[in-house]
């Protein structure tokens, strides 16, 4: 686990090779995270994976979150592990909703980490984030004909209102 100064060192080294790639860092509850520019995400992941002395070769998890009132609202998180030193680092790419009905886009990292294949499909399935260059970006858990992106925070909860006598009397 890189500590806070170690994280800043990594940031500095990335900055030297890819200027402007890392927008900020955070070190919260012993968890080091790099916030990166979505356009240079693959460059950062490649750097962390291939640079001697870094060697974050294992993608343990790829997932997304919707921070709706915030802007940009979508965050795609990459959890990387160096398995020799057992060190973890998190890479976050923040995406905003285009607003014209099209989907937010991000580069796919399947070429770099084959395990990302299904996980990117899952993120697409639930959040509607499109991964450019993914070999087969289709729904993986929901039915193929499902409409909508159910894990977005503005997606209706669903279900049916339960009619209690109280509701009937007061609002029926």
């Amino acid at each position, binding site marked *: 686990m890189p500590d806070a100064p170690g994280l800043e060192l990594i940031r500095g080294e990335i900055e030297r090779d890819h200027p402007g790639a890392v927008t900020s860092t955070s070190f919260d509850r012993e968890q080091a995270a790099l916030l990166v520019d979505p356009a240079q995400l693959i460059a950062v992941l490649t750097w962390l994976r291939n640079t001697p002395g870094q060697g974050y070769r294992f993608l343990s998890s790829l997932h997304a979150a919707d921070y709706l009132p915030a802007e940009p609202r979508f965050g795609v998180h990459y959890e990387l592990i160096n398995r020799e030193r057992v060190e973890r680092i998190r890479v976050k790419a923040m995406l905003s909703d285009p607003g014209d009905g099209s989907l937010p886009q991000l580069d796919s990292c399947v070429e770099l980490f084959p395990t990302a294949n299904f996980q990117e499909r899952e993120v697409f399935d639930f959040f509607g984030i499109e991964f450019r260059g993914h070999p087969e970006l289709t729904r993986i858990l*929901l*039915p193929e004909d*499902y409409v*909508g992106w*159910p894990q977005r925070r503005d*997606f209706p*909860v*669903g*279900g*049916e209102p*339960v009619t209690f006598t109280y509701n009937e009397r007061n609002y029926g």
Partner: protein
Amino acid sequence: MEIERRSFTARQASARDMLRGDLEGEDLERYVEEKVVTTTFEKMLNLARSNSIFPLTFGLACCAIEAPISIVTARYDLARFGAEALRASPRQADLIILSGRVSIKMAPVVRRLYDQMLEPKWAISMGACSSSGGMFANYAVVQGADKFMPIDLHIPGCPPRPEAVMYGFTKLQRKIQGNPDQGWRQRYNAVGTEEWARGGPASTPSPEAAEAYLAAREMSLA
């Protein structure tokens, strides 16, 4: 004991008398009336059906621990009601118990299993989730299994105890026999307010109607 034995020998003797042709006239009439029950073929068939149900080996979620697994064990023993033979193929089964929430991806599969079952067939929706969606009011779960297939019986609970499932099962048997006791008279404390097809007003049924009612009641509550 002694009296029972005597009456048994007496009955044996009368059976021998009948076979020998010694019973005649009124005695023979009474003997036949005692020994023979007349019914319709339909009723007899339903009686047989209700006591030899083949449930489908099928579980959806946590309720499956209670319904198809627990109730066939020695502790609860559904075999007492003639339904211990669980079938692994829907084509051999005539009862499907929906034990758990039905997700939108599972619903077409469940419907297909139900369609594959041969007539006559019955379906029990067990637990809150398959009856109404339960706690899963979200995008992934069907809000009540009767949105996509006919359900004969709902068993409430989360999950229902095996005893509740067996109680529901006996209710289903009664429904199959064409005599569904919905239980509302007990719930609304209305036993004894039945109307009579023939005889006097509700408070004083004719003796034969009262007798018939008591007999039917005994059968349905036994």
